[in-house]
């Protein structure tokens, strides 16, 4: 048996511990990071664009599915007529080659698909992940072993490959965006389940959970009132980083032609033939690619900001220009002695 004393650390401080937990301080810390704020604004704008897509296209007077053959020069292989790929007052960003569909409308509706699928897939992953993670941590040894083994297998499955193959075999009658959501959600919940399990195990051992048992509360109520709130932080952090990943995956699948299929627009899908058309219609490449880039970047920065706001101690060392200070109480972490 180890001689290291479980009980005593250096006497605890008898001065109040600084650094409040709670929602208010979270918002305060989030607001303090300018990059995350900018990112949040960008994300909010994107969400608005996606939500109000029909309104925006109505303003323009177009829709994403109507073909406009008159705007295409089929003699030259389908290149849009006019300069800048057919930009005009009626078609703010021009038209798509070969089909003549309005680019702005497709872009704006594509936002719906990209954001919607990514968010929905994230929700699926989080729900499954929490369920499995908590069940694993609170269940008997056998349950834990079994579920952990299942989780390991899921984690080992390469997301792209499996999604690719799965999407191929389901008949097209099934609504595509929903299918993509389900496929991504069902294949990639492994990591979050692991995080939830680890955190639940830690929380389970905390004294205040034992105290709740002593008070007389039952397991369900303890899980709900004491454990779940403790999971909020790591789950939100990870979910915030999952969303941009899911956007990239959906875009990649649509790019390959197995994700969202035409006529439903998706940014990845719009890039499928972009290398062929970029010379004649550069915006055909620029706008979807740019939209993807900006979206994923904003979400990643926001996710970083959320992580820092939720756990400033761990993140302070990672932040740019945080100075050469050691984290307060690193290592010994006992009392206020530096």
């Amino acid at each position, binding site marked *: 048996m180890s001689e290291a004393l479980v009980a005593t650390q250096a006497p605890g401080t008898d001065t109040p511990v600084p650094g409040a937990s709670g929602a208010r301080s979270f918002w305060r810390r989030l607001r303090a990071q300018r990059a995350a704020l900018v990112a949040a604004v960008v994300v909010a704008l994107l969400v608005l664009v996606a939500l109000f897509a029909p309104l925006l296209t109505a303003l323009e007077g177009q829709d994403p599915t109507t073909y406009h053959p008159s705007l295409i020069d089929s003699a030259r292989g389908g290149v849009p007529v006019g300069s800048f790929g057919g930009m005009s007052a009626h078609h703010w960003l021009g038209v798509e080659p070969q089909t003549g569909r309005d680019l702005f409308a497709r872009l704006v509706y594509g936002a719906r698909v990209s954001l919607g699928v990514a968010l929905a897939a994230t929700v699926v992953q989080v729900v499954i992940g929490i369920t499995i993670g908590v069940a694993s941590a609170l269940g008997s040894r056998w349950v834990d072993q079994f579920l952990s083994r299942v989780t*390991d297998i899921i984690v080992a499955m390469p997301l792209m490959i499996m999604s690719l193959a799965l999407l191929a075999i389901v008949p097209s009658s099934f609504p595509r965006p929903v299918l993509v959501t389900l496929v991504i959600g069902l294949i990639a919940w492994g990591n979050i389940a692991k995080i939830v399990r680890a955190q639940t195990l830690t929380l389970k051992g905390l004294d205040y959970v034992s105290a709740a048992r002593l008070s007389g509360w039952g397991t369900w109520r303890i899980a709900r009132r004491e454990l779940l709130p403790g999971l909020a932080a790591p789950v939100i952090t990870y979910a915030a980083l999952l969303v941009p990943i899911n956007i990239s995956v959906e875009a990649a699948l649509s790019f390959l032609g197995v994700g969202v299929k035409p006529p439903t627009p998706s940014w990845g899908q719009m890039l499928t033939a972009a290398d062929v058309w970029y010379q004649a219609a550069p915006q055909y490449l620029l706008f979807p690619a740019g939209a993807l880039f900006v979206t994923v970047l904003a979400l990643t920065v926001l996710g970083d900001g959320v992580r820092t706001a939720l756990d400033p101690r761990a993140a302070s060392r990672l932040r740019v220009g945080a100075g050469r200070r050691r984290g307060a109480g690193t290592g010994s972490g006992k009392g206020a002695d530096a």
Partner: protein
Amino acid sequence: MSGFGGFVLRRGVGAVITLFAISVIIYVVFYATPGNVAQITCGPRCSPEQVHQVAQQLRLDDPLYLRYWHFLEGILVGRDYSTGTAVQHCSAPCLGLSYQSDQQVTELILAKLPVSLSLVLGAMVLWLVLGVGTGMLSAWRRGRLSERVLTGITLAGTATPVFVIGLVLMIVVCGELHLLPFPQYVAFTDDPEQWAWNLLLPWLSLALIEAATFARLTRASMLETLAEDHIRTFRAYGVGERSVIGRHALRGALAPVIALNANNFGSAVGGAVLTETLFGLPGIGQELVHAVAVVDLPVVVGMVLVIGFFVVIANAVADLLYAVADRRVVLA
């Protein structure tokens, strides 16, 4: 070292079980599909008798577990197929015959494998060197302008989808600047120099994204390690900063990075598929996309299985490397 041997054994057994479970799941998922496999293969214009004929040919009448057993048998010892007229022997490891071309899936995969391996392994070297190097540089130069720039670049790198980078590179480097010709795959055995030149753009597009992720992780890991107590101890004993970092911080910082490499391998494989499609490289990824488009199930299943195999191996290897780097893991 007996603990280590036990550790290796346990991980090995775990990997085998995982592979087995993956094969079952994949087989069941794909062959027990809602859609009528025979119908899909034959096409929408087939008559019911034709569909039935195809079903017979593909032995779809057998119960699922029997089909899986034959499949497993094929992998382990090989099996025979009757293709109407002749009997074809498919030697181990047999992954079935392509619906479209009747070619052995294993042969198909082996033919395409060198391309994919060249792509992924070459990119891996690149991203490890670039990523870890950049990360350490960021950690070293913490707080200065060069670090902020690097952090910004790596952040942008992680945000860009693989195929976008590939597209941009291709357009800029080949299309506009004409620095390189449009990549055409040349086998290493034919002409090593051309092989490398042609793979340069695909390597870069695959590697840059992964490198960005690695750079961020290495930086974070390095900074965290530098704040640990044992670093303080050696500084307190007058050990020079270079020794402190090189001897003491490096190993601790790199251990989690190694572990991540395995995790990333799966996503890198996905990136490889995209890169192959984009640049027209005749590798497994491109073939998989094609097989998916024509619903050539044996090819799809076979390839997914092979890729899954590599991912599990990569995970196991990373686990082992991590245990070598940090012996404490062995006790856990």
